[in-house]
């Protein structure tokens, strides 16, 4: 049965995928940050808000809400922007040039990075590759969006690059 995006189950499934890919994440190095994701509906109200904790090479905490934690940063955006990113990842196996986390957040055009502490904000970049590969793991998840639709199927042997 498909899980829903956004939901706690979705991020728990990503945590499980990360456990399977532990060797890959070990090669990327220590990954010590706690950040939050916030998915907004069409009116800008939160559909889902969750906290993700990473320590050493693992995802050690997945919680709904912020529960008094002070995340290093919050990745926030409308469900449509998250969907566009997840569709690209699901179709191609990993984000393409238009849908990496840095590209989507750089000028806040699709997703925004909220933060109080610039040191916490910089963790998005200190662990950039680990965070990107964490979201890329969603390529292997069976999930549906709030309207019941599913992301596009995987396209084999497609180049993600191009000008």
């Amino acid at each position, binding site marked *: 049965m498909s899980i829903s995006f956004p939901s706690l189950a979705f991020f728990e499934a990503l945590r499980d995928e990360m456990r399977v890919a532990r060797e890959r994440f070990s090669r990327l190095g*220590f990954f010590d940050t706690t950040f939050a994701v916030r998915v907004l509906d069409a009116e800008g109200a939160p559909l889902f808000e969750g906290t993700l904790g990473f320590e050493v090479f693992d995802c050690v905490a997945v919680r709904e809400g912020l529960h008094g934690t002070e995340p290093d940063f919050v990745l926030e955006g409308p469900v449509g922007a998250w969907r566009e990113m997840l569709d690209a990842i699901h179709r191609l196996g990993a984000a393409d040039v238009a849908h990496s986390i*840095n590209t989507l957040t750089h000028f806040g055009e699709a997703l925004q990075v909220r933060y109080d502490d610039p040191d916490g904000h910089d963790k998005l970049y200190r662990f950039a590759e680990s965070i990107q590969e964490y979201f890329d793991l969603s390529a292997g998840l069976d999930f549906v969006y709030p309207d019941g639709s599913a992301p596009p199927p995987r396209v084999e042997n497609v180049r993600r690059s191009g000008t």
Partner: protein
Amino acid sequence: MSYLATTDFANDGAFLDGVARRLRGDLDLSWLDEPRERVRCRPQNERRGLTLRDLDVGRYGWSAMPELIRQNRSFAPRGAEQPDGLPDLQADVNRKSEVWAYNLDGYYEEAMTRQWNATTDIPWGELLATDLPEDIGKAYAQLLTFLSEVEMIATDVPAKWLGRLNADFFEVKNFIASQAMDEARHAEIFRKRALSTGFGLMRASSHNEHNLKFLRDADSFAEASLALHLQAEGMVLTLFRFSEYVSPTEGDKKLFRLVMQDEARHVGYGMQHLKWVVDHFPERRETVHRHLDEAENFVFGAGYATEVMEPFIILAGKGTKKANIDEGIRIQKMFQTKQGDEYFERLAKCGLPERRERSRLWKMLELAKEAG
């Protein structure tokens, strides 16, 4: 060969007699009786392994290290017994607050585990299969030329200071050694990418090189760190993020994500070092401001130089047609605003919120914002 031994050992009778006695089995063994602190450090977190923080115990640790290192003038590792006759190395930096940073050991451990390889971690085959259009390719090659220039001096600066720090600052020395390796890898990857685009290296930048000379020739480690780690690398970090944003291929995006990780770690050290200076050596605040006054002057000249700014515009606008240039200028302005905002945010977090009011760079950025 300017440093000569005060003893000609091959002709020193007492020394040769001692060697002969030991070879006959008549051992001295006085070193066994040195009074010392016996420790057996263990990992506090098995998943993380044995970290430098696990070694922060007693005389071996850094927590008990004094502000002024008067007792160790030699290569003796911190905590070792120091017999008479050790050389005075005349280290240039013997004051902890000139080099130390909060979470210093954490940055080092992170650096060690997050190393990567410019030869094997980049999908070179994929990159070589993509032909870049002439205008984009040349603009990209010019950006890579600029970055190659920057990273070479970013390697030289920590390497220059490495041997000039007191040996007791072991953790700092190791961190800046890891930084020198990071920056050397950055110089390597930008050179490799430039020479694989089909366009090669383009034009060196006079304005940029004067800025780099200023970084290299800082009068103290604290000034070098301020200008390199916090100001220059902070601005380059925003530039790497921008470069990832405008990268033409997924392989190039990965390249910039990997270099931005290293750069953000160096910026982290720079921030935590400046906070340490402001917290522990507040009389340096005015010196810090004076150094930033000139550093910002140089960086303004370098960042807005023709051969630096124009490739950004072309890459951001994705071409050289009028509409592309207009779009490129729009994005370039957003980038410069972001770069300035992030730099002043970091300084405020480090305890210098007044920097905005004092800075001519801030005033120029504000004028540019007002002008739209």
